[in-house]
């Protein structure tokens, strides 16, 4: 009798430790998502700012400037639920303006244009990176949260179910200058 009780106690403690460890794992994943999301926000903001700077600097023709300014402004001001669409439209606008190498070369020739072009190239390249890292973290957290042990014991607490950030982040060919995948 006593022996059975001891075994039950051991089992309960073991299960408890396992659940506690899983909760720690989940907590770490949520922290990782927060950090990845902050990084993604920073990169998106950086891309929009560089675009806006370029649009107002007068190095581009007026039509291209207006298109870029509009798109960058919309991306920066977008509400959370429209953000993915607005950022995708900024990607499309950038592709439309910098679709050809000639345009990038023209920007580079203007004083200060070289730096502007390389800043924009870095920004359009980092957005897909940051997004991929974010969505990877989201996937890992979702996989764990769907598990029985997490659902039954409510290990996730009140943390909202993580959502991936879906957008079109294809950079303009002329700026990317190498296969981006």
């Amino acid at each position, binding site marked *: 009798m006593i022996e059975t009780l001891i075994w039950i106690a051991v089992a309960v403690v073991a299960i408890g*430790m396992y659940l*506690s460890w899983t909760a*720690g*794992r989940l907590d*770490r*994943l949520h922290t*990782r998502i927060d*950090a*990845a999301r*902050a*990084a993604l926000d*920073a*990169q998106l903001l950086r891309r929009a700012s560089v675009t806006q700077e370029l649009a107002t600097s007068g190095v581009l023709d007026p039509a291209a400037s207006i298109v870029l300014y509009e798109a960058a402004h919309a991306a920066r001001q977008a509400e959370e639920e429209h953000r993915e669409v607005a950022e995708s439209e900024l990607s499309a606008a950038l592709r439309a303006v910098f679709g050809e190498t000639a345009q990038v070369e023209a920007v580079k020739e203007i004083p200060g244009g070289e730096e502007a072009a390389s800043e924009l190239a*870095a920004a359009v*390249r*980092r957005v*897909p*990176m*940051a997004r*991929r*890292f974010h*969505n*990877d*973290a989201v*996937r*890992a957290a979702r*996989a*764990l949260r769907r598990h029985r042990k997490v659902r039954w014991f409510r290990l996730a607490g009140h943390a909202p179910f993580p959502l991936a950030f879906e957008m079109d982040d294809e950079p303009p060919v002329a700026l990317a200058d*190498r*296969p981006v*995948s």
Partner: protein
Amino acid sequence: MKIGIVCPYSWDVPGGVQFHIRDLAEHLIRLGHQVSVLAPADDETPLPPYVVSAGRAVPVPYNGSVARLNFGFLSAARVRRWLHDGTFDVIHIHEPTSPSLGLLACWAAQGPIVATFHTSNPRSRAMIAAYPILQPALEKISARIAVSEYARRTLVEHLGGDAVVIPNGVDVGFFAAAEPKAEWQGGTIGFIGRIDEPRKGLPVLMRALPAILAARPDTRLLVAGRGDEEEAVASLPEAMRERVEFLGMVSDEDKARLLRSVDVYVAPNTGGESFGIILVEAMSAGAPVLASDLDAFAQVLDLGAAGELFASEDADALAEAAIRLLGDPERRAELRERGAAHVRRFDWSTVGADILAVYETVTDGAASVAADERTGLRARFGLARE
């Protein structure tokens, strides 16, 4: 930035991953970053100042060949000490799924972790069995890098999630500036790789050689790499053996000179490649490349635009393509030119910038790396003193 790099394989044994880490570390140091590499090494091995030894590696059969790996209690303690002493902004783990330092570091660290996946193995049973063990460690990785689209695909299939593709880097200038050696020029085919490792494909080339020599008797085959030379030529008719020259292990300088000198570089590998750095080196040196059509090779060669491909393990196809290339100087010149343009994306200036961009993305706003002090039970139940 303070960067810690974890190398899973023995530093004293030459290998693709080790070279990649060495070049990366040196590139980052040149840019003014502080870099420390943790690698298994014998105590007697002289190490560059930026390498910290994690102790001796144990030879274990793994992934089709004998790998020298580190595991166990002592190694884990060394990893922890290195993490603690280093106070890194980011750590970069290579091959985190190999049962060695990479995995140990993944367990022991917290904070911004970047991992590069080099291999692309077909899904193995061991991998499926190990999945529940690996997953909690791999979850800590904030950014994954795959060395090729092919490696990324394997990663997605095996482990889920996603990765950015950043190819391995090559010092293009070093190969492009090497001086050709006259005695290695004139109708020569080059091969670099372990002679006794069938995956490197020398036997396929040996089967193709009689046909090549029959069509172009002046051709010479230059083989650089370790292994039993007599065994390698055993399948050749006696008279043809003198057309094969073994150079043994060559230095980096000689490797570059060899690649500069040959008329065709042949990579007949039969599998197990996830990238193909040697092809990039050959193209950097301006050697026309003829390679087997492995997924990884096809990708490095831009699907055949920057070098020729033949059906893997098909000696006849290899012979036919080699004869055609040797007899067509214009096509070779065209390949040289395309190769030289294509390799720019593999130069360290490009690859290093991409890797730094990854570091910066994951360190943005994140705390620095620390040893993962496992929360004790007392702390979990809120009993620990703050």
